[in-house]
């Protein structure tokens, strides 16, 4: 009985210290999550800065790109017989 009591007491102590150790690990993980979240936010900010038109437009101009004067649209007429693709026989609907 005494032996059982001693073993139970030691087991309890071991369980308690394991729990405390896990709690410290959890606190470290939560801290790491916070750091990753902050890093994620920074990266989202970096993305937003990179896609800013005020940054991209001058770079595009340097590369010789221009804003198109007109937009071309291709209209596909879905007839009962099937699509008539512009440029094939039949009415040319491309604009």
């Amino acid at each position, binding site marked *: 009985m005494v032996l059982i009591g001693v073993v139970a007491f030691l087991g309890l102590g071991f369980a308690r210290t394991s729990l*405390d150790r896990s709690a410290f690990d959890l606190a470290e993980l939560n801290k790491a999550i916070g750091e990753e979240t*902050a890093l994620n936010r920074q990266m989202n900010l970096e993305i937003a800065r990179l896609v800013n038109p005020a940054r991209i437009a001058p770079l595009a101009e340097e590369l010789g790109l221009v804003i198109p004067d007109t937009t071309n649209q291709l209209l596909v007429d879905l007839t009962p017989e099937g699509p008539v693709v512009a440029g094939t026989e039949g009415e040319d609907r491309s604009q």
Partner: protein
Amino acid sequence: MAAPKAGRRLQPSKVRVAVIGLVVVAAWMGMGYRLVQIQVVQASDLAEQGLSQRLVSRDLAPQRGKIFDRNGELLAMTVQAQSIFAVPDQIEEPLWVAQQIGGLLGADTDVLYERLTSDRDFVYIKRQVEDVVANEVLGLEIRGVFSHPEPTRIYPAGVVASRVTGFVNIDGDGQEGLELVYDDGLAGTPGKAEFERDLQGRVIPQGFSQIVPAIPGVDLNTTIDLPLQYQAQQECLLALEQTHALSCWVVVLEVETGAVLAMVGAPVFDPVTRQTQDPRCDGAEDPALCRAFSNFTVRGIYEPGSTQKLITVAAALEEGEVSIGTVIPEVSYELELREDACRFADDELFGCYRDFKEHATEDMSVAQIFTKSSNIGTIRIAETLGQDRLIQYIEAFGLGAKTGIDYTVEAAGILNFEAGCMTCWASAAIGYSVAVTPLQMAAAYAAIGNDGIWITPHLVSSKTDVDGETQVAGMQTRRVVSSGTSLLMRELLASVVEKGTGAAAAIDGYRVGGKTGTANKLGADGRYTETTRASFVGIAPINDPKIVVAVLIDAPSFDYRTGGLSAAPVFAAVMEQALHRLGVTPDGYER
């Protein structure tokens, strides 16, 4: 053996044992007493005292909500930064420290030196510095220099969206624009954390812990299209350069919903520093000139000039007083509503009205009057309405009242119809004697594009909170004219571009319509000057309007003084981009 006689003394060793035994017993009794005192009598007090030493209470700052454009691009967000501070008492070589840190932070060394040599316990060196820069400063390992985390508001789009987002102060409270209007929602709700910590500051597991989490602020999803916003701003900046104007303002609305696709002004300003980016501000004597972050599209009022004629003619058509083909006989170049008001050719007194270009007296149809923007013809049309009905339609189209847009400090404008004023109705008919905002004019034209239904403009389409996305409350709508009148007015607007004063507003592939406006500005003496405010408001495509663009250019140079010369080209460039951005199918119109 006989017993020892009474009075015989105990042996010294036995006395010592007894004394020691008594001392030990007393010690144990003392310890026992102390144990009972601590563990029983004072137990709760001491436990409470211990807990108070270990317990830490911290406010949990909520994350301020983000602001997005209609495509999900970030316009504003809060990130963690570092605020660098110093304890002057601990600074050993303040001059050297000021030079070292000032160089890294781009701060004034003299100002820094003054702070580092002050007798204060604590001085800020610079607040809300990016982590990279802060780490460089802290990497110098200067005694007495420290940092603490502090959130900072970042605007990735910079000057492009500053007139929409507005800005916050150093403490993160909204001061202008959407940051102010939605400050309560964006700010969120602070939380509180109480927990036990050890000597190293670590949370004690299994210890007392009570956390009320902070509720993050809502995210705003705006109606702004960032690429279009940028394009419109660029066109405005180009117009300023070409016309040497004081400022340029553009509003782009979606006709059917009232969504604001772009709202720009030039000169531009930085939402972080609140400084205007205008070369004319370099070395300017009046610093107020260079803090011009007020949004004129919503807050500024001006006399709209001929763009107002849309309302006058629409009202007359709606009331059946005229039709498009009605001929107004003998429309002259000049009209006097007060005797001798037009006494001198170069001096228009109160009650004198003239057309922009001199012409012979002629019969003109309503369509011709509108297309050629005849002031006299429009006044003759307004005569058929009378002042009361004219005022009724001006108010119905939203002038003289706030539109209700979700923005700060919106101007209602002015309708000047003083009792006994003989000529106010005539002035109002052609866009004088009334003062409007560019947004009001855009909304009025949007009503014509929307089959006669006026709709409240808005900047935020929805808010996203911790419970999920929620829609903003519905907008107000009202019918101002019939769809038939709207259709007629759209044709008149198209004729202005195709045959009239708005030729520079034409766009390849789309049939557009609009109205030029050229209003003289009042001088300090209360008389009109040669300086103008040039404007153009238009819609496209005419057959199925999707977009309204309103352009106002303040004080262009003389060569660009009219709406047709300065504002119409800006309209064309912005409208073309807007139609492309929204993927509106061209209607095949060739100019």
